[in-house]
């Protein structure tokens, strides 16, 4: 842990939201870690000076079983063995409360992962999240969730339980000791609406900058809303977009460095257990 903390201290860029996958592809079940793809990700990240990548392997199905959850987290553990530049986030289905807590022990306490990744199986403020959120608070492990405020009918139909800022504000109040990261302000959807809601959010709600949306001003507006301390650099696998929009944001270099690595470092070094 101390050695890891020393490396994190030197990091210039920590991507808090990225993914690895098994041989079945990202977001799908299937096989061992796709090493070629993972190595390709590391090479691309190196070209953009990304020192560490927080990776998960979430499933997008309605109710992944505990066995399916274990299998995808095994892929993340394999990625961590491949390179210590991968920092693992364990995917959980809170609908299986006992198994989710067991998986946190396996992956975070014993396995060295640094956070929890949730997808759209439940809203972030659903009471079913409580046992996992409380344990995450005890471990000081951040909880990152796929999120967005989509306005097109097709995406709404595919993701009926996609959490947006309203859900995160509520979750921040329900789980005040848990560090919540709203995924990808640029992940598609009305980011302006999300930011307007977040104008009054609890201090334990953070946001990451990832996503393919690189609308001019998106990072500036995010910083203006939450303050620079709660904005985290990330790419969600879309690397040039992720790096480019932060480099172009109207920030002084101290604030840019905070977003690129400093804020992530603060969160990751709080972890205990």
């Amino acid at each position, binding site marked *: 842990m101390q050695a890891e903390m020393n490396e994190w201290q030197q990091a210039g860029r920590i991507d808090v939201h990225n993914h690895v996958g098994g041989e079945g592809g990202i977001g799908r079940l299937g096989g061992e870690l796709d090493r070629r793809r993972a190595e390709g990700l590391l090479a*691309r990240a190196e*070209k*953009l*000076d990304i020192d560490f990548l927080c990776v998960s392997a979430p499933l997008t199905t309605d109710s992944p079983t505990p066995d399916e959850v274990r299998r995808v987290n095994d892929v993340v553990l394999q990625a961590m063995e491949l390179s210590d530049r991968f920092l693992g986030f364990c995917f959980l289905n809170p609908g299986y409360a006992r198994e989710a807590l067991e998986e946190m022990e396996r992956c975070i306490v014993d396995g060295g992962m640094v956070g929890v990744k949730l997808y759209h199986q439940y809203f972030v403020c659903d009471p079913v999240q409580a046992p996992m959120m409380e344990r995450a608070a005890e471990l000081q492990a951040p909880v990152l969730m796929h999120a*967005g*405020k*989509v*306005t*097109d*009918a*097709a*995406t709404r139909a595919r993701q009926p339980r996609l959490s947006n800022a309203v859900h995160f504000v509520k979750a921040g109040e329900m789980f005040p000791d848990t560090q919540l990261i709203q995924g990808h302000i640029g992940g*598609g*959807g*009305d*980011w*302006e609406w999300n930011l307007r809601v977040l104008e009054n959010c609890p201090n334990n709600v953070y946001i990451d900058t990832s996503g*393919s*949306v*690189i*609308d*001019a*001003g*998106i990072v500036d507006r995010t910083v203006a809303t939450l303050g620079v301390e709660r904005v985290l650099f990330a790419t969600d696998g879309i690397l*040039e*977009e992720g*790096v*480019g*929009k932060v*480099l*172009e944001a109207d920030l002084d270099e101290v604030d840019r460095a905070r977003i690129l690595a400093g804020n992530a470092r603060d969160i990751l070094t709080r972890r205990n257990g």
Partner: protein
Amino acid sequence: MMSLTLPELFDINTTVGHWPFRKIPHQTPGALRQVLEKAGIRGAAVANTHGLFYKNCHDANLELAVWLAPHGEFFSGVATLNPLYAAWERDLRACREELGFCAMRLVPQYHGYELGCREAVAMAQAATELSLPLLVPHRVVDVRQRHGFDTERTIGIDEIGALCAAVPQARVIATEANFSGRALIDAEGGFRYPGLYLESSRVDLGSFPEAVAAERILFGTGAPFKHLQPAILKLEIAALESPSRERIGRRNGRELLGFS
């Protein structure tokens, strides 16, 4: 970071004018030119956003010509016309011969037609006879965040490909598209649509063989709607030889618009 010397860049995909659904910075030619030049971009093709919304969209072309006049050769005007509207034939000729525009934009998702319709094909043929390449946006903004009054429709490769097939001599530049090499290259390694080109901002350069990328891809940013740096980074770090990078970054766009 791997840091290569980029060529002076020419941006095939910029716009000016007011967008009604979100406050966009740098909407005027002067402001846009400042941010482009700061990023190392030395010229740009530019269309008027108002052309999406004016019923008589030639008014947007006339506006654009006035706005661009103080900027000399930095900006190359792109006409926006609707093949379903009256007098498009005269407007097209005026855009070329009187306003000096270098390309024409077709926006079927805003003007209510299919690219394969008789009128669109006729306009594409007429533009081609005037040596005007055609810009076709796959989308203007990400439809997942669209305003309720904005269109959800995107223009896919099948529809664009059908236009290319209907007007084989046309040079069609798909902008804001993320079509991959897998979709565009046939089993023999040839490009499926001989007249098709791609603006780079959403393209995965690595999905194309270098020879194809160097011939078919044109640097673009989508400014001022989008940040410029992602498109510049893409070109900077792509595994390309310098001549290919120079072609994509500058030459392809300028050649298609008729500049040496």
